[in-house]
């Protein structure tokens, strides 16, 4: 669905990332991992067409997107920003209905069909009860879910999510990640998200793209690319990656810090 071919991104006169190639297919959850400042946000902005590509190409459904209108692009790709506080207290159902923009004209407003889709999106995330609340008055976790609902109401094929678990408490992190996995696995969307938790990629991701400090990257299954060596090199911390057996007998892989780590961590810094 989404193909990046030797994509370069950055700002005018300053290259941030070069030669990024990968393909995202339907039903896939791709987790993007990398240290702060390596260019994850720049990559996202380039994928979203908010920054011009500095070389290479982005294709959607086989077509280069260079000449696509914002509207056409938004029908294919939805964006979930980090939960934020806008200046005005719109109601949650109005915020979610904004996802219908790409399907409406400039002088139009959402109609009954659009409002129904917005309510359905809220319902699918289990937050239908928030529809009448002020978006500025709900919790950070709820706001993140509302933004996901807005992107679902947009009915895209691909979702791009910028650190959907940032600033959320433990319970909300798990809830958001479970919904995201569900959207990919059952909804058939391709999802790309950034996260700072290797466990999120290991537990929920179907693939991972990891960036190191030298801006080299690797794409593969989370188990292939999230290794003790990568975490040591990139973050300067010693970790152990373990396979565990869950109570239902399924296997999962988790990352835990190695004890006595400070000495090795200090060596790299």
């Amino acid at each position: 669905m989404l193909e990046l071919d030797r994509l370069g991104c950055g700002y005018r006169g300053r290259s941030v990332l070069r030669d990024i190639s990968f393909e995202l297919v339907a039903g896939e959850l791709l987790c993007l991992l990398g240290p702060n400042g390596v260019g994850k946000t720049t990559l996202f902005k380039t994928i979203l067409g908010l920054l011009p590509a500095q070389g290479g190409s982005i294709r959607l459904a086989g077509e280069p997107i260079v000449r696509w209108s914002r509207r056409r692009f938004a029908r294919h790709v939805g964006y979930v920003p980090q939960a934020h506080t806008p200046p005005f207290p719109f109601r949650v159902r109005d915020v979610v209905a904004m996802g219908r923009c790409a399907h409406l004209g400039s002088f139009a407003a959402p109609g009954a069909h659009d409002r129904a889709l917005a309510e359905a999106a809220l319902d699918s995330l289990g937050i239908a009860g928030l529809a009448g609340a002020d978006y500025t008055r709900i919790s950070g976790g709820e706001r993140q879910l509302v933004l996901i609902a807005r992107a679902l109401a947009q009915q895209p094929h691909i979702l791009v999510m910028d650190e959907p678990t940032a600033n959320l408490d433990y319970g909300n992190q798990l809830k958001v990640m479970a919904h995201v996995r569900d959207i990919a696995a059952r909804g058939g969307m391709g999802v790309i998200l950034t996260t700072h938790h290797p466990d999120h990629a290991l537990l929920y991701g179907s693939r991972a793209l990891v960036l190191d400090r030298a801006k080299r990257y690797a794409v593969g299954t989370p188990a292939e690319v999230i290794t003790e060596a990568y975490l040591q090199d990139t973050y300067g911390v010693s970790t152990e990656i373990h396979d565990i057996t869950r109570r239902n007998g399924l296997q999962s892989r988790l990352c835990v810090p190695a004890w006595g780590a400070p000495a090795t961590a200090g060596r790299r810094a």
Partner: protein
Amino acid sequence: MNGAGQGAEPARVAALALLLAAVFVASFAVGRYPVPPLTVLAVLAGELAPLVPHWSPETEAVVLGIRLPRILAAMLVGAALSVSGAAYQGLFRNPMVSPGILGVSAGASLGAALAILLGFGMPGIQAMAFLFGLAAVAATWAIGAGLAKRSDPVLVMVLAGVIVGTLFTAFVSLVKFVADPNNTLPTITFWLMGSLASVDLADAGLAAVPVLGGSLVLLALGWTLNVLSFGDEEARALGLATGRLRFTVILCATLVTAAAVAISGIIGLVGLIVPHLARMLVGPDHRILLPVSALLGAAFLLAVDDLARSLFEAEVPLGIVTSILGAPFFLYLLARSRRGWN
């Protein structure tokens, strides 16, 4: 909470329309030549239907010849400043923004000051104010578009507006500095204070064209303004061509403001306060916020203009009264409720 909130909105709009109608009738009655409200209604009805006048010709002259143009102008200017203020607050995502943010008032001031300096009559002053108001915003747009390549276009636009406004205000001071202190200087100073004392029906009718035209486009863009208030990147990711839409909103709001300022001079705070008040009444959805701002702005400026012309023996310039009344009122709004923007 929602059911009550949404059910209350049509009732509030109806109440506002009634309020405006009441202020409208009362405004004919107020002044140094008092006219009973029933006579006002009869005179107005006499324009529409063939009534046998039971009122004096003087009463008719006061109501139709003197007060009607002024009342229409006050409503037009109040509505115009409030609609453009509400649209700008949404577009610039900031409840502290006023219609003059991109330099339209400073530009209009320079146009009017130059016209007065050059000895133009009232139509010339109005035309120059209107054109210079547009020119100042065009300069802001050009600077903003030139610099916005590498940063937030909305922020750059506001900063460019501050600079252009400062520059045009400096030119206004320069014009005042060279103006004749016995003749043109007082006229310029008086114009800058804002007043509707010399507006006639033709002025109001001419200004009504850009005000109504621009306001209608802004009203039609109400829902789009909601989306734009989430910021440029988010709105683009949602599928809006933000550059073109921002241009349209700025163009319309500028036409509306410049036309109002051209007939009234500088009237501060209305475009800042009224959208706040409207947001407290009906929430931030621009589809309803813009029409409510128009109703409220019309009623507010009409009431203030009534005070300006009846409070003292000599008429106080409207801009002074709006600011003196508006400043504490604004503080009261801030202290009482933050519902409107937080």
